[in-house]
């Protein structure tokens, strides 16, 4: 837009008169006509238009009073607020350049893709317990006692206070999406991952482990984060240093594994039911405070 043509003294004078003439006209229509007349002048006048050229263009436009009369003919019914709002909306939408609509379209498309992505990665099912499991340390699995009551099984070992204890379980990814175990999920409403301590160390077996082909859990290495591709199984090892207080032969047990899992761009908590309860039994060493 040329500044010089619109800033010509005669043009400014004309637009000022037009504003004055449009005072009785609804604001939306007045604004629209002013915008149209301004655009007309901007198109019609060269940047270096002289007084004679400007005067000729303004004369052809007609007087501001005539234009104002065209917009609001005498006796015209006043517009309702609703109609004014609609006209304003129409005006504003029509004013939006095509490039802006293109940008809006792209943003809407990207938002749609993001929502689709979100739905795709948040709706897949959780990791599942696969069936393989055992105590990690020989001093534990050599003393494990398995009991069944009411259809529920529990494996119990003596608590070794201040020492490392742990178990491993096979975890299956039955979904079509890669899931990555990031670590234990802690929270006031979340179950513990160990019967002997609130704090645990999680490890996920590295690839090429195939427990269905007789792989030995103690011969594999573990890592974190640990990736489980779609349809594959990994061992998850849970280790802790027992630090809870158990008196008079009391037992502590857990039967779920709460994990932080990344699915696509998103991280969620998955609570995986285990096949049996894992328990440690007292008495713990040292005084209970």
């Amino acid at each position, binding site marked *: 837009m040329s500044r010089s043509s619109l800033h010509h003294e005669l043009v400014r004078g004309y637009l000022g008169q037009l504003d004055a003439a449009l005072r009785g006209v609804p604001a939306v229509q007045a604004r629209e006509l002013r915008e149209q007349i301004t655009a007309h002048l901007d*198109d019609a006048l060269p940047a270096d238009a002289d007084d004679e050229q400007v005067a000729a263009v303004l004369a052809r436009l*007609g007087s501001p009073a005539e234009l104002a009369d065209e917009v609001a003919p005498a006796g015209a019914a006043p517009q309702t607020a609703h109609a004014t709002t609609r006209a304003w909306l129409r005006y504003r939408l029509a004013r939006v*350049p095509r490039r802006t609509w293109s940008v809006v379209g792209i943003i809407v498309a990207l938002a749609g893709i993001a929502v689709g992505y979100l739905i795709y990665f948040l709706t897949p099912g959780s990791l599942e317990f696969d069936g393989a499991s055992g105590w990690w340390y020989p001093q534990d699995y050599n003393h494990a006692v398995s009991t069944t009551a009411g259809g529920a099984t529990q494996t119990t070992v003596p608590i070794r206070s201040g020492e490392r204890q742990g178990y491993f379980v096979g975890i299956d990814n039955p979904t079509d999406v890669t899931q990555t175990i990031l670590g234990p999920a802690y929270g006031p409403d979340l179950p513990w991952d160990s019967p002997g301590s609130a704090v645990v160390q999680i490890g996920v077996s590295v690839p090429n482990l195939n427990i269905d082909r007789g792989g030995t859990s103690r011969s594999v290495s573990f890592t974190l984060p640990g990736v489980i591709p779609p349809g594959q199984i990994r061992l998850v090892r849970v280790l802790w240093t027992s630090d809870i207080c158990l008196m008079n032969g009391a037992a502590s047990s857990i039967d779920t594994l709460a994990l932080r899992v990344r699915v696509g761009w998103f991280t969620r908590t998955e609570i995986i039911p285990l096949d049996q309860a894992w328990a440690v039994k007292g008495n713990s060493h040292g005084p209970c405070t």
Partner: protein
Amino acid sequence: MAEGGLTELRRGVLGPCVLALLELRPRFGLELVRDLAAADGLLTSDGTVYPLLNRLRDAGFVTSEWQDNQGERARRYYSITEAGRQNLAAFRTEWDQFSATVAGVLNHSRLPYGDDEKGRRLEPQLAPS
């Protein structure tokens, strides 16, 4: 004929003329004004085209859209709608009949009755049965 009468006649036909131009292709304001001005005697003042365009748009005969063509300033382009096309088609039909009737009256060829060249009163002409 008085100038005021011609002005009213122009006002009445300007809308269909605008629709006829937009029927060919969308145009921006000044382009439309220049094309109308090129038809001698049709436009009394350039500025009246814009309120007319707004009325046609409010009636649903015209739409407008801002186009930001590369290398040019953004311009509001006006296009005819389907309702506008139908309205224009109807006007064309009526205009043909109307203009023929007016021409007939103006040229004394379709007077149902009137005075002859000697000032004698003529009886209404009956259509042949």
